[in-house]
C-alpha cells in the first residue's frame, strides 16, 4: 500500500509547511470550508472511519452527536496523550507530519462548529509539543487558522495543552478534567462529552491518527478511503510493533491484514529465528493472543471475534523465552501505578492483582491464586468501574491466566511457603503527630 499517513516519513524537511503544501496539504481544509459542516460530517460518515484511539467508534457518528442548535461554545479536543504501553504511532505522525494533524483538527472543528480546539499532548512529549506549536504558528501565519480563516468567516484557535504524565488522562473525560485544571479523574457517564464536555460544553474528542485521516478523506473522497481495508473496517492503520521482532517500528497497513503478515513480513519475524509465543494485538490493555491465533485479521471486528481488541494497534510480541507470569506482573504493575484511585474495583483490584503476581514471582504462589486473579478481573471489568481502566488491567491479566494457566501452575507447584511476616517498625513521628488522641 502506498503510505498515506506516513507519506512524509523520511523526506527532507518533512515538518515544514512548505513541504506539506507541496504535497497537496491544506487542500482538504479549503475544500471542507467550501462544503459546509454537514457535508463534511457526511463525507466522514460515508468513509466509515473508526476511531483509532482504541474503542473504534465511528467518527462521523461521534460528530453527529453534538447538538446542532446548542448555543455557546463547543470544543474539539485532539487526544495526543499516547501512553498505552507498546503504542508509539501518534508520535510518529507528529514527528514527520504535524500539519496533517492540524488540518484534521481544523476540519473536525469546522464539522462540529467549534471555534476552539485543544491538542492534549502527553507531558513527556516535550519535543512533539514543540513541533505542534511551531506548526500551529506556521499555519496561522498562512491564514489557515485564526480569525476568518481563508475568508470563510470561520474562526479557529488551536491550543496545545501538555499533560502532567498520568496515563489515566488519556481517558477522554479524565483528559477534559485535566484541561480544566483539575485532578485527572474520569467522569461518570452519562452525560457523554458530546453533550456535556469540556467546561460543560459539547465536546468531541478524537485521536491524533483519526484526525490525521480526515484531510485525506476530504481531498480524496470517502469512496477512496472506504476502498482500503474491509467493509466497516476501512482505511489505513498504523501498527506499532515492539518486542521480540527483528524490525520493530511503525508500519502503515490497511486494516484487515493478518497479524502474521505484520509480524513476519513487515516487522521481520521473531528475533533470532525463535518461535512466537504470544502477542498483545493492541497495546497492553488488550487480551493477549497466542501464537495459534496469529492469523487473526488486524481490524476492529475480527479482533472482537477473537475476544480481544485492536485497541491502539500497538503490537507487543513475545518469543518463547518469555515467562507469561512475568508479563502479567509487569502489566499489573503498570495499571496499579496508573489507576486513578477513584472507584473501588479498579483501585483495590489492580493493587491486589499486583500483590498476588509479585508473590507468585517471588516463588510463594498459592494454589488459589489463578482463581483469585480471575475473580478480581471478572469483578473489575465489564461496567463495574467508571472508566475502562478496570477492563484495561483485567482483560490482559485474565487472558494470560486463562491461556497460560500451566505456567502459573508450574510456578505454584514449585512455590515455597511465604516467610513469616515482619511487622513494620514505625518510626516515632514525634509528639506533634499524635497529640490529643
Amino acid at each position, binding site marked *: 500500500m502506498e503510505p498515506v499517513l506516513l507519506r512524509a516519513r523520511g523526506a527532507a524537511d518533512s515538518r515544514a509547511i512548505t513541504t506539506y503544501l507541496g504535497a497537496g496539504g491544506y487542500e482538504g481544509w479549503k475544500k471542507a470550508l467550501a462544503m459546509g459542516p454537514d457535508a463534511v460530517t457526511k463525507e466522514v460518515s460515508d468513509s466509515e472511519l473508526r476511531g483509532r484511539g482504541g474503542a473504534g467508534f465511528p467518527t462521523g457518528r461521534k460528530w453527529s452527536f453534538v447538538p446542532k442548535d446548542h448555543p455557546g461554545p463547543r470544543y474539539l479536543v485532539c487526544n495526543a496523550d499516547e501512553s498505552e504501553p507498546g503504542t508509539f504511532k501518534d508520535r510518529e505522525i507528529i514527528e514527520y507530519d504535524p500539519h496533517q494533524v492540524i488540518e484534521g483538527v481544523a476540519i473536525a472543528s469546522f464539522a462540529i462548529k467549534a471555534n476552539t480546539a485543544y491538542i492534549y499532548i502527553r507531558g513527556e512529549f516535550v519535543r512533539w509539543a514543540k513541533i505542534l506549536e511551531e506548526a500551529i504558528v506556521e499555519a496561522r501565519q498562512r491564514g489557515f487558522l485564526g480569525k476568518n480563516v481563508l475568508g470563510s468567516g470561520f474562526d479557529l484557535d488551536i491550543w496545545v495543552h501538555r499533560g502532567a504524565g498520568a496515563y489515566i488522562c488519556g481517558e477522554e473525560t479524565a483528559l477534559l478534567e485535566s484541561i480544566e485544571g483539575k485532578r485527572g479523574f474520569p467522569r461518570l457517564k452519562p452525560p457523554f462529552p458530546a453533550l456535556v464536555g469540556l467546561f460543560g460544553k459539547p465536546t468531541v474528542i478524537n485521536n491524533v491518527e483519526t484526525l490525521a485521516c480526515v484531510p485525506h478523506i476530504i481531498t480524496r473522497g470517502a469512496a477512496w478511503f472506504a476502498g482500503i481495508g474491509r467493509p466497516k473496517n476501512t482505511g489505513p492503520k498504523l501498527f506499532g510493533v515492539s518486542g521480540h521482532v527483528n524490525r520493530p517500528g511503525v508500519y502503515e497497513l490497511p486494516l484487515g491484514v493478518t497479524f502474521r503478515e505484520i509480524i513476519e513480513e513487515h516487522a521481520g519475524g521473531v528475533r533470532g529465528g525463535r518461535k512466537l509465543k504470544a502477542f498483545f494485538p493492541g497495546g497492553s490493555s488488550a487480551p493477549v493472543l497466542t501464537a495459534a491465533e496469529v492469523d487473526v485479521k488486524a481490524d476492529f471486528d475480527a479482533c472482537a471475534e477473537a475476544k480481544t481488541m485492536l485497541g491502539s494497534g500497538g503490537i507487543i510480541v513475545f518469543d518463547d523465552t518469555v515467562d507469561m507470569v512475568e508479563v502479567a506482573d509487569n502489566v499489573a504493575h503498570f495499571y*496499579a501505578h496508573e489507576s486513578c*484511585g477513584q472507584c473501588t474495583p479498579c483501585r483495590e483490584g*489492580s493493587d491486589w492483582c499486583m500483590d498476588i503476581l509479585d508473590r507468585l514471582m517471588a516463588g510463594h504462589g498459592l494454589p488459589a491464586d489463578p482463581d483469585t486473579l480471575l*475473580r478480581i478481573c471478572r469483578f473489575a471489568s465489564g461496567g463495574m468501574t467508571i472508566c475502562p481502566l478496570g477492563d484495561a488491567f483485567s482483560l490482559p491479566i485474565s487472558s494470560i491466566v486463562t491461556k497460560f494457566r500451566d505456567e502459573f501452575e508450574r510456578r505454584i507447584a514449585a512455590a515455597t511457603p511465604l516467610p513469616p511476616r515482619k511487622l*513494620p517498625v514505625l518510626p516515632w*513521628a514525634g509528639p506533634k503527630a499524635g497529640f490529643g488522641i
Partner: protein
Amino acid sequence: MPKLTIDGHEVEVAAGTNLIEAARAAGVAIPYFCYHPYLKVVGQCRICMVEIAGQPRLALGCATPAADGMVVKVEDSERAREAREAVMEFLLANHPLDCPVCDQAGECLLQDHSMSEQGAKFTTHMAETRRTFPGYERRLIGPHVMQNQNRCIHCSRCIRFTREISETAALTYKSRGNSTFIDTFDGSSFDDPMSGCATDVCPVGALTLRETRFRKRAWKLRSTPSVCPGCSIGCNIFIDHHERVVYRFTPRENPAINATWLCDYGRFLAESLNEQAYLAPQRQDHGHPAPAAWGEALAAVAALLRGAASLRVVASANMSNEELFLARELFGRHLKGEIAVPVAAGEPRRMKNGKGEWLLAKDAHPNAAGARRLGLDTVDGEGLSRFLYGGAGLTLILDPEAHPFLASPEALRLLRVGTTVVWARRSHPVADGATWLLPTPSLASDEGTFTSSTGAVQRFAEAFAAPGTVHRTATGGMSPDCPTIALPWGAPGEARPLWLVLSALARELGIETLDLASPAEVFTLMARSEKGFAGLSWEALGGLAPQESFRERQHVG
C-alpha cells in the same frame, strides 16, 4: 411521575429521583457509601449496583434516574448481588479489622452493610498484607477532626462536602491509585467552620471528632430531636445523650434550613448543656445563699409579685415561644409589669440549606423572632441598661444569659437597689446575688418551640427530665467522686423548666387560665389567641421528625 417496579414493589416517584431514593420509597434498601442526598453523585464506591431488566450491564442506583416502566432488581438479582459482594470484598481487602477499637463502630455504614447483608457468610480471598498509611493513622488534620487514613474507603464525601457545601475546598485527594489518601489541600489545618460535618458524612471511622470520640459508644446514645440554640437560624439537631449526660449534637435533616449540616459552633454547644450550677431553689439568708424547697420558693415569689410596687421582667430570646407567651400573659397582662427581651448581635454565622442557599444568622439567640412575633419589646444592651435604670421595685430575670450586659458591674449596681428573682442554670453573678434563685435546666430537659429567623416554628423535645450535676474530669473520664456505677453522673437535681414554674406561679396567684399542664397546652392557647401562631398545631409542627434511631439517621447524615 415515573412509575417503576423495584423487587416486585411498585412505586411512583418524582421525576429525576434516583434509584436509591426510589427504592427507599418502595421499602427496598440499596446499599451505598459514597452517595449522599445533598452532595453531587460520583458513583465511586460501586456498591449500589442493581440490575435493570433489558439492560446488559448492571446500573448504578445512585446515578440512574427512575424511568417509567423500569423493572429494577436489587435483592432478586443474583448478578447484582454477586457484584455487590465483590465490591464489598474489594473494600474490605484493605480495610482494617479494628471495629472493636474504632469509635465509628455502631454507626458505620461499612460495618452495618457487612453485618446486615452478608451476615457471617463473608469470606475474603485476600492473602496479601494490607495496605497501610504509616503516620496517617491518628492524625489531627484540624482543630476538631482526627484522621485515620487506614480506614478510609475513598468515597470522597468529605472532599465533596468541603467543595460543595462549606465552599472551603479544604480537603482533597493526594497521590494516586491504591495510595490515594485524604489530606488538607495545602497541608494546612482543616479549620473549616463546618469541619464537624466532614466526620458526619464519613461513612467509616476515617474521620472522627476529637471532642466526642471514645466518650460513648454509638449504640448507647439515645437521640432526641431538638433545635440548635446557637443562633437564630434554628438548625435541626439530635441531642445524643446517655444517662442524663449530653454527649453531642448531630444534625437532623431539614431541607429548608440545614439540610444535614451543622456548624462547629453549634455542634460544640452540646457540652455546655451538661453544666448545671444550681440544683435547688436558693434564697438570700443574711447575705449567704441558702437552699429552699420549691413549695416555699413558689409561695415566696408569689408573695413578692403580689406585693410589688413596680414589676420589671427581663425575658430572653433563649426562651421558647411558650415560655415567652406565658411570661407576657402572666407578668405583662395580669400583673401589669414591664417586659423587655434583650437581643445581642452575635458572631456572624451561616448555614447552607438543601437548595444550596446560605442562610445568615440575624441574632445570637434561637428565638428572637418568636419574641418579636409575640409583640414583645426587643432591646439591645443600651436599651437594657435604660430598662434597668431607676425603680426600686421587683425585678425578675428569667435568663441571666439573655444578654452579656447582665454580667457587667453596671448591671449588678443597678439591680442591687431592689429585689430580684432570677431563674438560672449556669453560675452567674446576677444569680448569686438574687433574693430568690430558681434553677432551670438546659435545653435538653425543656420542651417547646423556637421560631427561626426564617419564620419556621420548630419543636424541640425533652431528652431527659431532672438534670443532675455532672461529675467529670477534665479529660472527660468518669470522676472518682462518682458514688456508684449505676448512677455515675450524680444525684438528679431539682431544676424545673421555666414554663412549668410560670404556670405554677399562675396557680399560686389564682390565674386559672394560665395554669397549664404542658407546653402543648400553652401552645394550643397561644395558637388560639396569637395572630403569629394562628393555624399551627402542636402535633403537626414542622421540624420534629418522628424519633429515629441513630443508625437510620446515619444513612442520611
